[in-house]
């Protein structure tokens, strides 16, 4: 690999969305030689065939231990080493473990060239988990709204209330009991299920 050419980066990730986000980020930053691996069968032979300069893997992946074996295989033409093996970058290791990503560089690539790649992976991984959190929150908000609508329906039917009155009753009960409206609505659903 010449000093100018883009290093070949292999992304090992079972989450296709996260891998796509990562690849896009790397390409935007000018790293054009990126390959995604989402299939863990024969991982090692696929990596040997690809012969990447950098391997990025998510920490939820049990196959990370498979990569550790590459340090042992003396017959491999190029031996990978773990990120920042010279111990000078504890902060980088911490940031990447926090973000849930790990990287390996293969002999021959200068350490300075890994830093921007790893920084990018860390920020994309963090962005992905933020996205995931938002998605989870939206999902649970939607869930809550469904539950509240059903609870309102029950109150309207049982107590002859209008929809607005049913909502006010839910809200005031929630405030009095220091609970979320969704929780009160859920307990109404559970109770009505029990009394059916």
């Amino acid at each position, binding site marked *: 690999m010449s000093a100018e050419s883009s290093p070949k980066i292999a992304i090992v990730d079972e989450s296709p969305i996260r891998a796509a986000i990562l690849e896009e980020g790397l390409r935007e930053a000018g790293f054009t030689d990126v390959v995604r691996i989402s299939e*863990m*069968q*024969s991982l*090692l032979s696929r990596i040997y065939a690809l012969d990447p300069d950098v391997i990025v893997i998510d*920490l*939820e*992946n*049990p*196959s*990370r*231990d*498979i*990569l*550790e*074996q590459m*340090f*042992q295989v*003396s017959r491999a033409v190029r031996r990978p080493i*773990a990120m*920042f*093996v010279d*111990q000078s970058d*504890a902060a980088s*290791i*911490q940031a990447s*473990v926090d973000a849930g990503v*790990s990287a390996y560089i293969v002999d021959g690539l200068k350490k300075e060239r890994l830093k921007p790649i790893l920084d990018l992976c860390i920020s994309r991984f963090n962005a992905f988990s933020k996205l995931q959190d938002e998605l989870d929150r939206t999902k649970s908000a939607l869930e809550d709204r469904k539950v509240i609508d059903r609870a309102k329906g029950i109150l309207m039917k049982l107590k002859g209330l209008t929809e607005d009155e049913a909502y006010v009753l839910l809200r005031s009960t929630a405030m009095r009991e220091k609970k979320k409206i969704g929780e009160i609505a859920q307990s109404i659903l559970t109770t009505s299920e029990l009394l059916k």
Partner: protein
Amino acid sequence: MTKPLHIGFIPLIDAATLIVAVDKGFTAAEGLDVTLVREVSWSNVRDKLNIGLFDAAHLLAPVAIASSLGLGHIKVPIVAPFNLGLNGNAITASTALHAAIMAELDGDRFDPMATALALCRVVAARRKSGAEPLTFGMTFPFSTHNYQLRFWMAAGGVDPDDDVRLVVLPPPYMVDSIASGQIDGFCVGAPWNSIAVDRGVGQILHFASDILARAAEKVLAIRQGWSAKNPELVAALVRAAYRAAEFVEQPQSQPEVARILARPEYVGVDADVILRTLQGRLKISQDGTIRESSRYLLLGREGAPRPDPVQAAWLYAQMVRWGQATISADALQVAKAVFRPDLYDAALGRDGTLEDASLAIGAFAGPAFDADDIAGHLAAFRIRSLEP
């Protein structure tokens, strides 16, 4: 309650002591506030322990030594004041490989020398017929699994680097890999050997105790710096683990221990398989043959929890034998100092006399291990790596 502690573990039966210590309140009784964190890879456990996300961890004993020596990764000195598991590994062969070995067997099928010689003949026949070399799975480069597998086959004349392929596989992938024919055998801890037998894809060839009478596989690992700063916490952890290990060994508590471990947040496999493992009664083949061994999986008995520096020296010797480490008196000292019987004794108020005098390695082949002469000991073994 003290400051909250985070302890990482891999879902395996030899995490029992830690899981029970927390779940049955032995840690709380010591005033400890422990959160267990289930992990998916040994690399994660090592890294999270090294950078301080974990205060302690269920760790492969050789990883604790490799980390202290800076082998394969950054150098972080680790201490092990408590053994979490001895003799829990087993070697399983695919149905086809098992049959091939049995067909070549000259001797007792539980005699590791007889099976290793038979394996050597199987390997020679495959080479002659132009078949692909056999592939064996193990869990990590720095693992007793790797060393036990290598020790066994090398004794029979099989060079583990030249005659077969050894590949790392995460334990939960072992059974699928042997079922799909990607590997022909593996060495792994409980419960995965039993699960391969239950699924009808393999037979248990050896308990690790056939190969070594006594092998420290997993330890409670703590950063040396943290340990030095928090001696009371370390002592409290050792005491809680000791009580838990005693509890786990009680026959009347084992059904409850199996139910606890079976929960999805811990090991998440069938409680019956776990119970058989704890009792040292393993189904070794599809026909239902049960093999019992009092040597299998030592957690709290026979002085198992007390770290023995001779074990650390043996593990370091294997690293040298297989080219993972260079030989030096200093490195040997570092390796031995990872295992800390002094911390164990101090925590439990012991005077350091051994609970069990038979703390030898007890390998089935080669001369008795001499922790003070690694080079001389290794000279007795013909098959060994010349690197690095």
